[in-house]
């Protein structure tokens, strides 16, 4: 736990870095701050979302990703959500509505999906989407509590008998996921809040050591069958599915996190202050899979534009292979200054050329974390970086 003051300063430091490099821009507006994402922020979010989807949907048995319109027709008030939410499920705007969370919309796919599976249980439904949670006013915590959130939600429908085992399994999986990309995996902890009084259902929170203290980054809840019973009532359609030969109304396992939380977590996790050659310097140690740009190419200089042609080629070559590559046009700074800059941006690799490259084709690939420059032939760059990007 950090003192509130230093917590604020850590967040402030991160916010400044984010603004400088185009991760996140805060736009002040009446009442609350709106966050827009620059190139780096947008790519980080894309990467996180892709990892979540891959782990939660693609590689799982029978989990279906769905996508709903943001503006839905007004649903009947849903009385079965947790007490605090019971009133006013959505923000109403005119005759339209913006959702506070995704679960309701996800649930609307229950019957059609069950049908596609010949009523076979278990299966899951997942969505990544914008929602507009109503929150009590909190102190500013950067991306942690913005008005507009991108939820990553999964509902898994399991036969009641097996719900406990699945609950455990998902906890483990999710925890593994969070730790996989972390620079300090130990910052994550699991807290079982099932026994807490205000909890209707068994719930487990995955928590992260934020500057302001340990706080939740994902909630995994084992809800009973009430959501589905309610759905039966509203639709008049049975929610029973097959568990082997038995027909049961499944229980609902719910896991939910926000892209904003995940982004903030890994930015905080990656941000490191080091002293290199007597200078204080910030490094953003993002996992290669999450890093917005995998590589920065330092524009070649001198020698009658030939070096520049080479770096143009390298950048084009890498980009063509689909490797997100930063190649800023006009080098006004020394290579060392540029490295410092890319370290702050969180770019795992930088490629530089020198006079020697003209004759030999050998480039220098600097690793953000080791600061060592490896000699790599130009023809190997693509392959090498693709390997890094695909590695776990």
């Amino acid at each position, binding site marked *: 736990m950090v003192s509130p003051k230093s917590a604020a300063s850590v967040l402030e430091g991160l916010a400044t870095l984010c603004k400088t490099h185009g991760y996140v821009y805060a736009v002040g507006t009446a009442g609350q701050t709106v966050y827009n994402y620059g190139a780096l922020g947008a790519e980080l979010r894309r990467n996180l979302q892709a990892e979540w989807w891959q782990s939660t949907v693609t*590689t*799982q048995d029978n989990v279906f990703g769905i996508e709903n319109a943001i503006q839905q027709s007004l649903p009947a008030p849903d009385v079965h959500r947790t007490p605090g939410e019971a009133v006013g499920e959505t923000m109403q705007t005119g005759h339209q509505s913006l959702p506070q969370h995704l679960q309701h919309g996800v649930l609307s796919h229950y019957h059609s999906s069950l049908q596609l599976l010949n009523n076979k249980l278990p299966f899951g439904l997942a969505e990544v989407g914008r929602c507009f949670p109503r929150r009590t006013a909190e102190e500013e915590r950067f991306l942690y509590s913005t008005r507009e959130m991108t939820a990553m939600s999964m509902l898994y429908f399991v036969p009641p008998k*097996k719900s406990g*085992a*699945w609950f455990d399994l998902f906890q483990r999986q999710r925890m593994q996921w969070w730790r996989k990309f972390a620079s300090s995996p130990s910052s994550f902890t699991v807290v079982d809040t099932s026994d807490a009084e205000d909890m209707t259902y068994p719930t487990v929170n995955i928590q992260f050591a934020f500057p302001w203290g340990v706080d939740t980054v994902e909630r995994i809840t084992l809800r009973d069958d009430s959501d589905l019973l309610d759905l039966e009532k509203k639709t008049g359609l049975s929610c029973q599915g097959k568990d082997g030969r038995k027909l049961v109304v499944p229980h609902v396992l719910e896991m939910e996190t926000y892209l904003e939380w995940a982004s903030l977590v890994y930015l905080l996790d990656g941000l490191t202050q080091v002293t290199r050659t007597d200078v204080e310097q910030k490094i953003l140690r993002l996992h290669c899979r999450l890093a917005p740009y995998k590589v920065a190419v330092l524009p070649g200089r001198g020698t009658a534009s030939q070096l520049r*042609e080479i770096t143009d080629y390298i950048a084009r070559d890498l980009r063509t292979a689909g490797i997100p590559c930063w190649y800023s046009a006009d080098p006004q700074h020394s290579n060392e200054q540029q490295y410092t800059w890319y370290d702050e941006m969180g770019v795992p690799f930088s490629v530089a050329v020198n006079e020697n490259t*003209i*004759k*030999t*084709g050998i480039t220098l690939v600097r690793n953000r974390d080791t600061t060592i420059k490896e000699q790599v032939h130009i023809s190997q760059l693509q392959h090498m970086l693709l390997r890094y990007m695909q590695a776990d």
Partner: protein
Amino acid sequence: LLYCTSAFPTRMNPIDIQMLSKPLHDQIFQQEPTYPTEDVERSVRHLKTHDLWGKETSTLPEVDFKLPDLLGENIDEHFKEIARQQSKPYLDAAQVLANSRLPTMPREWRWSRGWTRYDGKGDVTAVDYPDEEALVFDVEVCMSEGDFPTLATAASPNAWYSWVSDRLLEDHYSWSPRPTLDDLITMETAVGSIKPGGADWREKVVIGHNVSYDRSYIKEQYFMKGPKTRFLDTMSLHMAISGLTSFQRILWLASRAGKKQGLKDVREYTSKTRKQFKGQGIGGWDWLNVSSINNLGDVHVLYTGGPKLKKTERDVFVKGTLEDVRNQFQELMTYCAKDVQATHEIFSMQLPMFLERFPHPVTLAGMLEMGQCYLPVNSNWERYLRDAEETFQDLQKEMKLSLMHLANDACHLMHDNRYQEDPWLWELDWSTQELTLKKEAAAKKKRVKVEKTDETENQNVEPDGKSTKKKKKKGKKEEAEEVEDQEETEEDRVQRVLQTADRLPKIKRHMPGYPTWYRDLCPKMTGVWSPGPNLISAQARVTPKLLRLRWDGFPLHYDAGQGWGYLVPGRTDNMGGADGQDNAGRNFPTKAVFDVYKEYLKQKRDTKDKEPLDQRYSGWANDDMWEHILDLSQKSKGEGNGDVEEDPIYDSSVLYSNGESAPEFHRGVGPYNDVDLPGVWFFRLPHKDGAKFKVGNPLAKDYLNKMEDGTLTAAAGGPANRTLEVNKMVSFWRNARDRVTSQMVVWLKKKELPRIVSRNSDYEEEGLYGAIIPRVITAGTVTRRAVEPTWLTASNARPDRVGSELKAIIQAPPGYHFIGADVDSQELWIAAILGDANFAGFHGCTSFGWMTLQGKKSSGTDLHSKTASTIGISRDHAKVFNYGRIYGAGQPFAERLLLQFNHRMTQEQASEKAKQMYAATKGVREYKLSEAAQQALAELGGTTQSGTEWVSLAEVRSLSRAVRKKLFLGSGQLDIIAGRRWVGGTESEMFNKLESIANSAEPRTPVLDCRISRALEPAYVKSEFVTSRVNWVVQSSAVDYLHLMLVCMRWLFNKYNIDGRFCISIHDEVRYLVRSEDRHRAALALQITNLLTRSMFAYRLGMDDLPQSVAFFSAVDVDTVMRKEVNMDCKTPSNPHGLTRGYGIPPGDALDIYQILEKTNSSLRKEDQPREKKANKRISIGQ
């Protein structure tokens, strides 16, 4: 206006053709021409017979301005004088070189960068460049390295030189395929410098064999202005002195291959082309001894008689790497130096011969200028390459994709063998391959051991699933015991299945389950791989079948023996049952073939096509005409450079049914009843070169117009038709891309550009500016025409051809313009003036001449309209015929062409039309009876029908027997024919003149006295190769015309300080690159050049006058890009928005003589020019 004056009466010749204005005439010619009455009357009579007398003519406004003073007594002397001045320093230096010996060749070559000089005395020094007035030079390039010179040698009477590239000395990683100036060989400047070594640029001459190739590796040649180095090409000199036609080249090679092999080659060649080859009857082979093919070795043997050069080292440069060159550095240097030595020996022999055979100084000066070709390009070149290639790839991809879909769909026919009922696909190979495992090793059979580790733990296993890892920690022995009795787990069972992988065949089976024809189209999954039947293309054998192509409604069929053809249903003589089988025992869907044709007829009834057949070709004739005519005429002349594949000409015989069995309702090439498919006849697709040829691919270029006219259609529907359309769009780029993309472009840095360019407001800092030096062989054919495969054959932009905007991508740098013009109907005029001179001796006195000068499209009296109306074809087609005729193509050519235009015309009809056309134009032959024959006839008491010594061919034949008998009784072997001539046609006089020159003892061009190649001189060839010689007269005179123009332009540029240079000459057009502010003066210079050149022709043919209508170019194009017409926007699929919108290039100006005189105040002098108001601003794009 100054130039339009009525102070003098319009000058007319006796048949009312307007001549030069008096002031102009007086400045050029010394005296007024005279017109003997008898000649005039003869002409009028002649014109009347061809319905050309009394036709309305129009007069042009008079032109009158002060010409530059001519040197010498007459225009001929003038040209001699200016040409001598221009070539003198080069000729002097060349003569010194030719008359000297080279110093001894160094024994060892120095391994160091750039130039090294070896004087004869053992001094070896590094130099910036060989500081010599004349030099023999040779470059070697390691092909695997791209366009970078590797090493070079040079020699003068004073010293030897060697040059070594940086890249050879030291390995460089290759970044850019484009060389920079620093990579090239210096000839006049130090490395890194753009200034000449001495005080100023000096006249130097570089001699080499095919020297334009070497020139393209010389640094200074890429400078827009400055260098005065000129090049002399021993290959071109050889071509002029002793060159061969392409037919002769075949014979030459054949004779060298030895008698047996040689004759076989000739026979094969002649049977392929159906050349008239009269076996041993060829009038002697003497020409073989005074000629050779073009390569250095053979040319060397011809001129020096010396030993053959060793050429094995050449392979290192062609196939080897730089490392290989390094390893053999000394040998390869010496090899290169020996080429230099040989070139010098050749040149020493050639120069005096050349000067003797080409006595007019304009010829040499013209060739020197022609060696200066220069094509400026800018960033748009790269863009063009990219756009064309991308568009091409895009369309290729689209085409491939549709074909892949068709192939995929065809797979559906696998089920229940439905392919057997398909009229196209029945004959594909539908067999499949099975995936089988190797036999299980006996020992392994029962024991499947399951070794599992924690790594394979899978989180996706259901949490309540059976625990599968119970036996893991047990010892081996226990495990072994347990295997037998323990119940197998799920995992064990799955593992067992997985382990069958060990028994997979080592070589991966390719798509087991798929039919063979489909598998053949799918690449194997290795390396870079694309899914599906990716190997399919327009060239694949299966493609016409998948497209379900029909010819006139009949399904196409491929037969290994006959090539592509089509199946016509209705045959009964080979029907066994309802549906029979073919020879291979396959079911043949007779009924389905019939249904295809029925369906086609139904479709045709539904959409009746009303378009007259003839119009379908008009577009074709317009756009492709040049290419086409040249193509055809090259073939018919048997001429062209050696690189062009020799294609046969034409054939008059189409095979008809052999009498066994043939359909009544269809005529075509066939039937070939050896293709014995039940119930159908097989006809071959017609081949452009005649019935004897098999068709390899119905989607080839030659069938594009058959698709356009609906003869060749795709029954597979929409996507298939689109495929055909795309195939047409990519045809140009498919053929041209290799040549175009391999053009060597050198980009210049800002400091290497003239300041006029880099300081111009249109100059772009990040733009690219540079040049291509086209490798033009200045005299590449026996007629001394220049040869080069890309630029000299480039056709014009067509809206449906990717990349055809090629020429327009040659673009002037900022501050410069192109000026240029087409010599209007150059060859027609040359032929006409020869005819006129031969007939009544004044302009327009023959019908052909009159039509050329005075004929009007509007009144149908111009040449093409006249031909068109004579035989009832379109004017565009007539144009093709007319040029073909003048190029020496005969009646069979016309027949062939008629059939090509309209394949539904019968052979007889085509033959009749062709005959009619030739009678009306060329006329008919008359033969002059020899004195002896006349006498014999008289003695026999007979007379000729005409009463003169001239008789027709028929009469010759009827007389012959009697007369011969009589003669043989008398004085033995005597010919009854003493001469031949053409009569009765509009062009008879012209052909008579051409033939008289061609058959003279020493054929020379009438204007510059250029002597024909030794290989065609009657002394060596007797009466063979007449067509080539006849054709040579006009073609070679056209080259004289070009040389006169080049020399005249250079004279005017020098005299009036016009900042500009020669760029290129394509066919009958010339282009110069001139500084923008000088562009109108340059345009005037070009007009004056035309006037003086034509006047020179008239003067040399004894006509001291020139018709006003041909005195000036109808327009001089002032433009920033090279294109056929200044307002052509060159829209193509790869340039969809055209030049104006896509590239921001405005249309140019086409200025006639009147406009030019106004813009220049009728003066070439800079100080007389009107103030220019505003520069021609480039259009800004995007608005």
